[in-house]
């Protein structure tokens, strides 16, 4: 198993190199640093000197890949590609446009992101699975049908509506919790309740429907018939047999997102004013801070690849028959 994990980590390297090359091409070849400078400075203030200054401040004034002027290994290292892209592997993301260190900023903002994303994830999973089991328990009845209709209707509502509607109803009409904001420590709870609940409600439609399909597929299997023939009550069949076996397909879809929880949710965080990575990304996008967006792309793919690895490992935990080799 360790050997397997090690090999998978090795596989991740070419993919990360690919991501790196891709972002490099996107940010520096499709648009030259001159283009970016011109756009950020605005039409009126563009002078060759201003562009040079802008590039020098950000370290974009080097050659792209090959520095012919420098000798020896500096020909490779004193370039934009090396200083901006290769250094990301070492966790060095450089500085944002406001001069702050991106790596430290990311470290600071992971906490608040996780404080919202983790409860939303756990609670959402629990609620959706319970709801799906309920529908399966009453399968082929009016209740089941109504539940599925509800799921489809909830899937069809924009996520923005849940957030705006929730904020309006709970914070503005009922005055239960503050509309937005964040604070550290236990105080955070009153800020977290609403985004977590809205996140759970917003996700319930599609996931509950999907789990229901998986459960229904399992329920047609032979071992379920055997369990019923033994005289087990339906409750035990569902919870002990069907739930455990259905865990494998559910895990495939779910485990992969666990590492990306660190990234936070773009929408929730910006609507609720949470200083997490999601709102950091949105602010960077709006300010057109290319360095931050590039770093987030890189971190996002690292976490995603980690998620794929976790998925494989979780199979062995959920199903002892699966052996990784």
């Amino acid at each position, binding site marked *: 198993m360790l050997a397997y994990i090690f090999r998978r980590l090795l596989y991740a390297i070419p993919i990360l190199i690919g*991501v790196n090359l891709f972002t490099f091409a996107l940010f520096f070849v499709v*648009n030259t640093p001159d*283009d*970016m400078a011109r756009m950020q400075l605005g039409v009126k203030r563009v002078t060759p000197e201003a562009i040079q200054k802008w590039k020098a401040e950000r370290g974009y004034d080097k050659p792209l890949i090959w520095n012919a002027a420098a000798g020896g290994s500096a020909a490779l290292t004193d370039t934009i590609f090396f200083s901006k892209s290769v250094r990301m592997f070492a966790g060095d993301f450089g500085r944002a446009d406001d001069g702050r260190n991106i790596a430290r900023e990311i470290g600071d903002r992971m906490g608040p992101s996780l404080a919202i994303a983790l409860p939303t994830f756990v609670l959402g999973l629990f609620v959706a699975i319970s709801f799906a089991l309920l529908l399966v328990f009453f399968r082929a009845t009016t209740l089941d049908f109504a539940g599925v209709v509800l799921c489809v209707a909830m899937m069809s509502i924009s996520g923005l509506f849940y957030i*705006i509607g929730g904020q309006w109803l709970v914070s503005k009409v009922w005055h239960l919790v503050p509309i937005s904001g964040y604070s550290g420590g236990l105080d955070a709870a009153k800020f977290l309740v609403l985004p977590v609940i809205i996140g759970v409600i917003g996700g319930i439609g599609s996931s509950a429907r999907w789990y229901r399909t998986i459960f229904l597929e399992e329920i047609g299997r032979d071992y379920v018939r055997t369990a019923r023939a033994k005289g087990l009550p339906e409750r035990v069949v569902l919870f002990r047999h069907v739930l455990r076996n259905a865990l494998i397909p559910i895990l495939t879809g779910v485990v992969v997102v666990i590492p990306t929880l660190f*990234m936070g949710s773009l929408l929730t965080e910006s609507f609720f004013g949470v200083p997490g990575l999601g709102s950091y990304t949105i602010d960077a996008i709006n300010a057109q801070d290319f360095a931050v967006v590039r770093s987030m792309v890189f971190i996002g793919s690292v976490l*995603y690849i980690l998620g794929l690895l976790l998925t494989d490992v979780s199979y062995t935990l959920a199903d002892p028959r699966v052996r990784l080799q």
Partner: protein
Amino acid sequence: MTAFAIQPVVLWSDALLFVLISVIVALALWARRQDALRAAWARVAKNGVAMAAATVLAVFVLVGLLDSLHYRGRLEAQPGSTARYAVEVNSALDALLSDMRLRAETTYSAPLATHLFAREALENSTQREFPRLKYGGAHLGENLSGHELDIAVRVSRGLAGGLVVWLLLVAVVRRANGLDFKALLKVGAGGAATGAILLTVLPILLLLGVAISLGGGYHVFGTDKVGQDVLYLSLKAIRTGLLIGTLTTLVMLPAAVLLGILAGYVGGWVDDLIQYLYTTLSSIPGVLLIAAAVLMMQVVIDNHPDWFTTSAERADARLLALCLILAMTSWTGVARLLRGETLKLRELEFVQAAQAFGVGRFAIMRRHILPNLMHIVVISLVMDFSGLVLAEAVLSYVGVGVDPTTISFGTMINTARMELAREPMVWWSLMAAFGFMFALVLAANLFADAVRDAFDPRSSA
């Protein structure tokens, strides 16, 4: 040179939309000759919910198509000079709704209101009052006591009109089908679910009747910040939603199908390369990839203002670029599915028989593999649609969506959101956008479910 009253304009997205329609028509003609596909579509056509959803979708598509016939109106001709055309690009829908489009107020007004939403200092008065709307309820004159009665009369007139049209329609269908009234409306009767379609058409016609009758004198959904009619904006937003939902898949499909089949059938280093390509792309979180690509596209567009002659063209280019970028993130899933299916098909007898007969690789892929993958293509086309429509709103909110001047559900929500803090709240343009979006996405979801059930060989068992 003769001067016409209008000069047709074909935007790139219009052209692609027409390509898309011709592709669908061609596919439909081709599917008619394929027994399996025809049987699957027949299953969809027998499904009452699916046909009701399809009816609603058809209405949206009709609005979107009308909005895709663009033209530039001719300016007042000066004698002796050649005809000149306006810079503004309008569509057939704009012409149809010109009343609604041109009767703009100065700022917010509530649905069916006769006065503006905010107090303003009036001339020859020291107090701040709600100014009278220029067009909303203008036919009432100074005497506003008849306001509610007028609305009630117009609503009932609209309902009656809708009902009459519907009854005429039912009579025509009855004549054609030879069924009596009850049998006709029984859902599921008569092969295709005619009853379901007719029952869906009824509320649509009633709503249409009310909208037309009220729209003659009021702003049915109120007006937005700059006084534009919200109903008009919602109708315009439909085209953007449809384009993003369909063009994205259209743009991505050729690449996804080609690469998926190649990876699955050829194998070896080709397979490795293609797998590497889609694993790399899909490992970047979607929103971030889109955000990064859209930012870069903005830089390109802003640095080349000379590429576009009208602002409509620039907005259109941004819309298309957004479709391309969304396609870049969504082809990976389809390609992976197709590769897996091709791997299975490759080992089947009919493919091996073709190989034994010495049929070439590409001929096998085209003649034997591709037709057997069509169900996956159709399913992914309809399943992706609703997700893309919803994604557009989110992306526009994040700031990486369509051009701010393009009317879309996302831009409507985004501008309306700013006004939520107002007291009392400006809720109508938000609710109109969410309402239209909900109807579109719900119909698409229901239709997609029926299509998947009919096409997926696993679920038909």
